[in-house]
């Protein structure tokens, strides 16, 4: 390991036996500390992305860097692998460079701060947190250029840097960084907020050590990790059949420069107690910015969390089970791009990973299988100078339909990301030159099923100042698939209505679209796939959905439900229609993708008004470089 950890106190930790009660007490205390980190951050951060939408992730790890509480897995392994300096008491690290931390964070707007916690001059734990900054400079406001070919176009790059040294802020460095951002006061406040959250975690960790002793604390963390490992081992061996390989593939529709779709392929199987995920077959890295540097450890956490939620939500997750998973990602592919590949628009591939996991794990256990969800976080950006000559800049995350699940219907217009919330429209109208004309879910976009997928959302942004907008979304070509008989959800669209009444559809990914006062953008996200046979859904529920405007009368027929003139389910007509449709449909397949990629491309122009994306052209250099890398290994 290149990093050197400096500790004045060389005394080794003594392994002590911790009784199960103390263990649980320490676990609860750490969990409270993690929630307190969130609370401090939300209250003091300033960018709407963090303070209103909660685009941030906290974590506490043991002294080896293994996450004991948090959600995205440890950010520390990658950092320790890639960083060549020392870790010393009083240090606090800042980085945003995925290539310098093994992808622990995956694009430059995510600023990761990392605090080694010392007690009596000995490293006892780490606290870490990253948050998405609204802007970090680069070629486009919001710093997420769809057409970037190299990471150097995407804003300032900060290698792992001691932003605090010996407990002192290196203000020269901070100022240098802020000088490169379009909204430095937001970055400064958000940075301060992250630091405040880390200091809070540090305080709590030290209190726990005071209470129980360093050795007990250290041993307890090890036991928490071990406890989780045992639980995961049980989950893996009981739920994943040995030897049988499952395969699944899904796509991101395009790369923002006219090519696509890009395939993400994964094969999963079990050998003994070990679960293996192999991404061989995934397309090579893109020439644009849709690459997603997927950290293997983070992916393990995704898998763990997903399995826990699906099979036994009582289990608390941490890094303890990492050696039970093996993740193979070929270098130079979309999920392990080589520097200097652009990374800013990785959100689509990141989101799609969850659909792939669901599709793979669910194949063996269809009862636990969820439909395709809102596997993305589409972005909307709007900036310019207002009438007073002041710069305004908005970055906003959109939401869509949660998929139909074994547990029930998917909520309409909700977030798949933990703790994320929408921005109140009154907040937008008060602070940005915008009026939100419409904020509603889109009828019939939820995939029909025994459990309906949630509807996507339509936001109608009326612009009150001339400016430029960016749109980043996906699933405009491929469908959010349905499962166990459920149908796919509706796809996304973006429509710009000019003040003079002319309409134009915008592509799913675009920057630098000029808008004028009075123009309206309808930002329509996609719905969740349906779960289970829609013909078996209680016709009364379908009638209620129609009355609520979530499904149309016409849409009810996709459930085989016929309504009377006053909106009630027509029992007899429904039975007849269902019998006929069931017969026509034939056998239910596990997945319903709404067509093959070739079929979707063939229908593309007619259905979306856009030409189908061209087949991706891949570069040679990184393939050669990747081969060299493999040979060296």
């Amino acid at each position, binding site marked *: 390991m290149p990093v050197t950890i400096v500790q004045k106190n060389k005394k080794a930790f003594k392994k002590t036996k911790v009784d*199960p*009660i103390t*263990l*649980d*007490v320490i676990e*609860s*205390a750490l969990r*409270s500390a993690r929630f307190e980190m969130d609370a*401090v951050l*939300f*209250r*003091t*951060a*300033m960018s709407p992305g963090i303070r*209103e939408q909660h685009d941030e992730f906290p974590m506490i790890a043991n002294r080896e860097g293994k996450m004991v509480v948090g959600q*995205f897995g440890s950010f520390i392994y990658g950092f320790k692998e890639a960083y060549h300096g020392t870790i010393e008491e009083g240090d606090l690290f800042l980085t945003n460079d995925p290539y310098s931390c093994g992808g622990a964070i995956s694009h430059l707007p995510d600023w990761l701060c990392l605090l080694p916690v010392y007690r009596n001059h000995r490293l006892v734990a780490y606290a870490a947190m990253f948050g998405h900054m609204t802007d970090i400079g680069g070629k486009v406001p919001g710093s997420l250029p769809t057409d970037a070919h190299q990471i150097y176009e995407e804003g300032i790059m900060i290698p792992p840097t001691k932003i605090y040294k010996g407990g002192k802020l290196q203000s020269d460095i901070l100022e240098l960084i802020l000088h490169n951002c379009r909204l430095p006061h*937001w970055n400064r*406040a958000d940075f*301060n*907020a992250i*630091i*405040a959250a880390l200091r809070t975690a540090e305080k709590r960790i030290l209190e726990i050590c005071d209470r129980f002793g360093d050795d007990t604390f250290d041993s307890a963390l090890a036991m928490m990790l071990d*406890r989780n490992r*045992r*639980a995961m081992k049980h989950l893996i061996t009981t739920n994943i059949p040995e030897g049988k390989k499952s395969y699944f593939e899904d796509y991101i529709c395009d790369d923002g420069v006219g090519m696509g779709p890009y395939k993400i392929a994964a094969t999963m199987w079990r050998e003994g107690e070990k679960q293996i995920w192999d991404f061989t077959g995934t397309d090579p890295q893109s020439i644009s910015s849709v690459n997603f540097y997927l950290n293997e450890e983070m992916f393990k956490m*995704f898998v763990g*969390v*997903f399995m826990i939620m*699906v099979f036994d*939500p009582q*289990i*608390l997750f941490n890094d303890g089970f990492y050696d039970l998973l093996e993740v193979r990602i070929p270098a130079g592919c979309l999920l392990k791009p080589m520097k200097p590949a652009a990374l800013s628009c990785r959100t689509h591939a990141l989101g799609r990973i969850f659909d792939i996991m669901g599709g793979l794990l669910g194949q063996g256990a269809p009862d636990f299988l*969820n439909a395709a*969800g809102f596997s993305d976080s589409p972005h909307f950006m709007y900036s310019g100078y207002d009438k007073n000559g002041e710069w305004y800049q908005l970055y906003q995350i959109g939401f869509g339909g*949660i998929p139909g*699940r074994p*547990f029930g219907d998917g*909520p*309409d*217009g*909700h*977030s*798949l990301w*933990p*703790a994320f*919330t*929408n921005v*109140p*429209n*009154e907040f937008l*109208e008060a602070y940005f030159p915008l*009026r939100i004309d419409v*904020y*509603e*879910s889109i009828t019939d976009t939820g995939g029909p099923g025994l459990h309906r997928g949630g509807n996507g959302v339509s936001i*109608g942004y009326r612009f009150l100042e001339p400016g430029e907008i960016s749109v980043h979304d996906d699933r405009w070509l491929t469908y959010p698939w349905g499962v166990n008989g459920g149908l796919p959800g509706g796809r996304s669209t973006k429509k710009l209505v000019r003040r003079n009444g002319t309409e134009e559809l915008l592509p799913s990914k675009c920057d630098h679209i000029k808008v004028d006062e009075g123009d309206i953008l309808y930002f329509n996200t996609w719905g969740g796939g349906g779960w289970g046979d829609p013909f078996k859904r209680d016709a009364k529920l379908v009638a209620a959905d129609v*009355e*609520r*405007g*979530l499904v149309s009368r016409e849409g009810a027929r996709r459930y085989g439900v016929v309504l009377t003139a006053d909106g009630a389910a027509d029992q007899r007509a429904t039975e007849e229609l269902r019998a006929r449709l069931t017969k026509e449909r034939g056998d239910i397949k596990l997945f319903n993708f709404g067509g093959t990629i070739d079929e979707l491309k063939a229908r593309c122009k007619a259905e979306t008004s856009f030409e189908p994306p061209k087949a991706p052209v891949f570069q040679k250099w990184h393939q050669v470089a990747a081969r060299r890398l493999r040979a060296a290994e």
Partner: protein
Amino acid sequence: MPYRLGVDVGGTFTDLLLIDEKTGQTSMAKVPSTPADQSKGVLIGIERVCAAAGIDANEITHVMHGTTVATNAILVLGGAKVGLVTSKGYGQVLQIARSFVPGGLGGWIIYNKSIPLAPLELTIEADERMSAKGEVVRRLDEGDLVRKLEKLKKKGIESLTISLVNAYVNGENERKVRDVARRVLPDIPISISSEVIPEMQEYERTITTVANSYVAPVVRRYVRNLHGELSRKAKNVQLHILRSDGGLASVDASANYPVNLLMSGPAGGVAGAIWIAKQSGFKNLLTFDMGGTSTDVCLVQKGVAQLRRETTVGDVTVRASSVDVRSVGAGGGSIAHVPELTKALRVGPQSAGADPGPAAYGKGGEQPTVTDANMVIGVIPDVQRLGGEMPLDRKKSEVAVQKIADALGLPLMKAAQGIIDIVNENMFGALRLVSVQQGFDPRDFALVAFGGAGPMHANALGKLINSWPVIVPPSPGVLCAYGDATTRLRDEASQTFIRKFPDTTNGEVQKILERLQERAAKALDAENVPRKDQSSSYQIDIRYSGQGLVLTIDIADLKDFKKNGLETIAKKFDAIHTQMFTFALTLPHELVNLRAVVQGKAASVKAITVGKGSKDPKAAKIGSQKLYADGKIVNATVYDRKRLKAGNRVVGPAIVLEMDSTTLILPKHYGEVDRVGSILIRPLN
């Protein structure tokens, strides 16, 4: 002779406390609660307490009442069929809510969202629009609205909410919609968001106003019935309902803004704790109210409970001021379990409730609860009766807790102690949330414990959080009635006023505050509180421009505000921000809300005192009990609380019994009985 009466309706008992306003002398009564119609129990209680005091009910001038009617309506979904009018394009404001899915990464897999309090089929959109600056950008289409309201009428709505975008800046369009609605639906209560809660954020404002509509009919019925019945017994009586924020509301205010009553019950408890602790000489408190299914905690500074501008009941969170009571799902009925996979010991949030209740109740409950763990380790002696009547079954508790012991591979006693330690840790988390997490040092606070299970866990909590003394007041039920009776009439008027400091002046802010003060004072005038008995205070909510949080700063005196009011406020804000978050910023400060609070005079109440005794409590000793403490069995002395006298010093391990609670004093601690009968527990050295 004027009397005032405090009434607390609990799940089991209704407690009443009658105060002679001239002398401060008190009388008490306790009668069974009548859950189907709470007012019945109240009226029976009034007869009882008047008889006890030997007075005529006509002599009662003020009745102060904490009620859970509004809370229960939401918890059991027993509210009205609410119709909702939104702006065009916003009909799904409750359906989409804040898009938030609880439960962390992957939480969506198991999250099922409940149907909004005003469902979509009862929601209509008014064609109108207000801008963020408060200008009407689109006039209301009345004809269209009438047609839509007729449809709601056909659907039989019982209550109506009007919540339009940007109405927090200008409520003109909402009032227009209301005028139309009154014509179409003359007989149903209408709540409009610009009156209920004129604050930014359309979802929060809408859900708050809808919650108001949801509980309005049931609260209205209850309050008016009770008032009518009371008036028949006592001609000149004024009824006041305790609000969530600890103030009192008139009958009309309660009926119109019942969303402000959702925490009425807990607010009474906190007010009572404040009053009783004051009698013992303590004003900085952590209150700790542990019941059967949950525990409520609250921080009190200098005799004033912390407030927050949010109230949560069940899965509904509304914007309404309430005493900052935080609840955790940890109570005497919380169930302990050991998940198969992790072999970890978990306690709660599932609760055995009152029925079947803990195994010890012998009502068929077999799951091990916190109460059972307390039975096993001996905190609850055999002589104790549930609610003073029902015997408890130790054997059944042991059988239940043994399951945990087996699953963990621990001896029975250790497992029982483990359950108690875990539940204590959960409650400790809640206490930390209101103290250290807000920048308060718990060592500066006394811990006041009440509720059915509170006094059993209080000493251990004191140890964890280091708050001494731990105060265990006598008779937990009466505590709330004390709270109700001693509360002051209070009204507040507030206004959202978002301005960066450079964009306003001290004079402008002062003028607004004075106007707000006058508005609140008028409300008290209407309650016959003379101006000389009114006292006013002022608050400003501020933040750094661009921040989401607001911190509330009190203004001591408005007279000097003109000179350097805002400057002083800014300094105070920076100091608090640094204390809470380790940093201050150089960005401009921004005003968010201005508020004036006007209060009436506090009632003078004399506490009931216990007679003076010696240091030795042996006269109250009624036996001894084997207790598992600090990893071994010890002999705890058992005392009868009724017989304890002021000055008695009870050294732990000891157990003090009274009809509706059990106090545990741990080894190496002692409890001192004071003048009013509170037990003050402290470490021995």
